């Protein structure tokens, strides 16, 4: 076996990940830990300043309820999420996040985030729930608060550790194992409670660009289903694994459209000039009641555009020129004010890209795009797994204690595995958390985890023989490469192993062609999914034939395996749900209609670590009374 030193770290609370939910967990948990003399250790595979989905920055906060000023109620937010997810949401979780999220946003502002305000000092809204920000350093600020909180509580942050597997004691999570991506060290973390906040998943499906632009996904390519894999391996029940997310964005560079749709009131049209939201309005009848209420769910908006593309009416365009012209019309009698307004709008439009999708700014500059003169192409991205946005995949977690619901087993945001907590992209059926809500949910979970430790925490009982077994398994790709690399002249073409990039392509090809990816126009069926599962079984067998020549590739190997598990949970869940409920996310051609009678329910799944079998179940949707 590769000669890696084993490093043991013991703590009370272990926080895995460094993005928004993990930073929220750290900030809140550190406060309660300090009060109670507990230790918090945070582990990130990158540098916390620029890790996770907000590494590049963001140009808006997408969840702010505005309770204190009476802008909206928490119940309004619950209704909004119910509607957008076609009736399927954990309203207790959505409620819980929404009632705490304003407090998070106010803290962000104090930390130094510039939230735009108007002449009266009120936040500038992009939409009903969205606030405009100067967000280039958004992640740095959130990380800074988390770092300061952990330092103040005497905790520890360890960067560049890639976490692979959970450590279990029966149905209790007692830690995690992983390795350093900088030195030959294997890490064993022992803890009384574990928070898994390692993000969602990209590159499960084949991206549209497969050459140099392979990494240009909308959500970051370094989010590799680490949380889903970790919770599945622990034996946690998962939910909404079929509810992937497909954003429609500016084509190819995937620049944000929110400012154009919400702030500039722009329309999207087909090549023939028709606004598909108007032309195809009758189609929405088929998706009642959700298709008939406002706002029209994201997946249905996607779907109407997809129908245009299918009918040969592409490309689709964002009418930027028309939108700017309309805004400018208001100033037609005052050329000076018009010039000033145009300058302002131009700056806002470019900041939207430069704060969060720099590639889009480069693409527009390379195409000589002047948005005030000419419209720009938009398209549906490849599918992603991101429970924090308009997708819903994640673990099934316990709900808030003070709500009377069927979803409680003790501690908020604890999975069905004892001592294992998650939030953000890690927890399912609580969509529309975005950055602020994910941080908020992390705070909720961080506090609950400390409460769990105070009430039930025990010294972790770790089976060291199992640890050795995991170490051997996790480092095996290095041994495999070393043993066989010399047999052929090209180390990448070898009969004994597969290199991680090729394995990733194999996974993506299966998902794209059988599970409704871009080249399948997001359509699939029972037969396709069953064939996909056959190929996935062979892929799974070959997953331990992946080889790594260094620590970086070892990380790639395990990222691939994590994605593979997310993929399987996804295929099984789409197969189980015999209807089409989110047609703009995926379309089951053999069950093309929504079936509320049988499927207005959650689709949950669990992989049994004891038997290796998957169990699929339906769970009832509970609505908050009177909402």
């Amino acid at each position, binding site marked *: 076996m590769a000669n890696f030193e084993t490093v043991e770290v013991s703590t009370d609370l272990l926080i895995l990940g460094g993005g928004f939910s993990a930073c929220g967990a750290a*900030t809140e948990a550190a406060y309660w830990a300090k009060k109670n003399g507990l230790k918090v250790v945070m582990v990130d595979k990158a540098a916390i300043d620029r890790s996770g989905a907000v590494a590049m920055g963001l140009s808006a906060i997408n969840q702010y309820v505005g309770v204190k000023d009476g802008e909206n109620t928490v119940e309004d937010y619950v209704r909004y999420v119910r509607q957008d997810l076609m009736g399927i949401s954990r309203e207790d979780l959505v409620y819980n996040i929404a009632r705490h999220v304003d*407090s998070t946003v106010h803290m962000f502002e104090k930390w130094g985030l510039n939230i735009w305000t108007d002449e009266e000092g009120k936040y500038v809204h992009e939409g009903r729930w969205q606030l405009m920000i100067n967000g280039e350093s958004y992640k740095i600020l959130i990380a800074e608060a988390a770092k300061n909180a952990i330092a103040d509580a005497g905790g520890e942050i360890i960067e560049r550790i890639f976490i692979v597997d959970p450590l279990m004691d029966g149905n209790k999570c007692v830690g995690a194992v992983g390795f350093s991506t900088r030195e030959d060290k294997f890490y064993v973390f022992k803890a009384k409670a574990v928070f898994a906040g390692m993000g969602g998943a990209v590159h499960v499906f084949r991206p549209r660009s497969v*050459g140099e*632009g392979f990494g*240009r*996904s909308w959500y*970051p390519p370094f989010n590799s289903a680490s949380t889903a894999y970790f919770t599945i391996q622990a034996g946690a029940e998962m939910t909404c694994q079929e509810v992937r997310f497909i954003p429609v964005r500016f084509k190819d560079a995937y620049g944000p459209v929110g400012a154009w749709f919400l702030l500039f009131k722009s329309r999207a049209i087909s090549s023939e000039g028709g606004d598909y939201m108007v032309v195809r309005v009758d189609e929405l009848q088929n998706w009642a009641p959700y298709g008939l209420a406002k706002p029209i769910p994201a997946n249905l908006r996607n779907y109407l555009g997809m129908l245009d593309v299918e009918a040969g009416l592409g490309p689709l365009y964002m009418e930027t020129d028309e939108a700017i012209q309309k805004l400018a019309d208001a100033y037609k009698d005052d050329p000076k004010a018009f010039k000033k307004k145009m300058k302002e709008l131009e700056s806002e439009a470019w900041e939207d890209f430069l704060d969060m999708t720099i590639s889009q700014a480069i693409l527009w500059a390379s*195409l000589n795009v002047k948005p005030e003169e000419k419209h720009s192409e938009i398209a549906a991205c490849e599918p992603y797994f991101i429970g924090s946005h308009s997708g819903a995949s994640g673990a099934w977690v316990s709900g808030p204690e003070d709500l009377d619901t069927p979803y409680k087993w003790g501690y908020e945001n604890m999975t069905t595995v004892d001592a294992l907590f998650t939030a953000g992209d890690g927890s399912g059926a609580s969509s529309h958390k975005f950055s602020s809500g994910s941080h908020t949910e992390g705070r909720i979970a961080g*506090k609950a985890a400390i409460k769990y430790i105070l009430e039930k925490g025990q010294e972790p009982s770790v089976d060291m023989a199992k640890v050795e077994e995991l170490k051997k398994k996790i480092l095996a790709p290095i041994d495999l490469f070393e043993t066989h690399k010399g047999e052929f002249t090209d180390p990448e073409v070898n009969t004994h192993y597969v290199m991680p990039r090729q394995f990733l392509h194999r996974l993506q090809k299966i998902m794209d062609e059988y599970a409704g990816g871009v080249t399948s126009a997001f359509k699939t069926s029972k037969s396709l999914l069953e064939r996909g599962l056959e190929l996935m079984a062979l892929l799974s067998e070959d997953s331990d034939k992946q080889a790594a020549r260094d620590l970086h590739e070892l990380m790639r190997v395990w990222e691939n395996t994590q994605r593979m598990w997310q993929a399987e949970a996804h295929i099984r869940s789409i197969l189980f749900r015999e209807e089409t409920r989110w047609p703009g996310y995926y379309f089951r051609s053999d069950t093309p209609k929504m079936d509320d009678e049988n499927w207005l329910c959650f689709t949950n799944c669990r992989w049994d670590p004891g038997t290796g079998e998957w169990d699929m179940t339906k769970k009832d949707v509970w609505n908050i009374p009177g909402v």
Partner: protein
Amino acid sequence: MPSYVIREKCDGCKGQDRTACMYICPNDLMVLDVDGSAGYGEMKAYNRDPQMCWECMCCVKLCPQQAMDVRGYSDFVPMGASATPLRGTEDIMWTVKFRDGSIKRFKFTTRTTPEGSADPLAGFPTHDDINSNALATEPASAGLDAVPTPK
């Protein structure tokens, strides 16, 4: 190749225990060729896997030598354009160069407080009751008298 290193300007963050780009890359892409054995030049950094670059420019913004930039993905971006940041302690200046040679310049705020100063509790009053439904700084940080509950 998404992020790239200008050979003449890169000094491998001389004298430091790690290079800025290696430290910050969220996808673990940047590597320092310490002795030149990888073929990139002694003490020169390089992107080991441009296909996995997100073009987030975290490396470009942090490079103390301004030795890094991004060239748009060559499988779909026409050549000749660039977006170059100059990031300070409270704002960022962008120079966007178009394919046709025209230039736009933008300046945006990055933060309103001194670097490092974020107080985790944000100056709000806190409480001691871990069993309450209020997070550490609530209800004050929410601007409310109590955490909302369903009516």
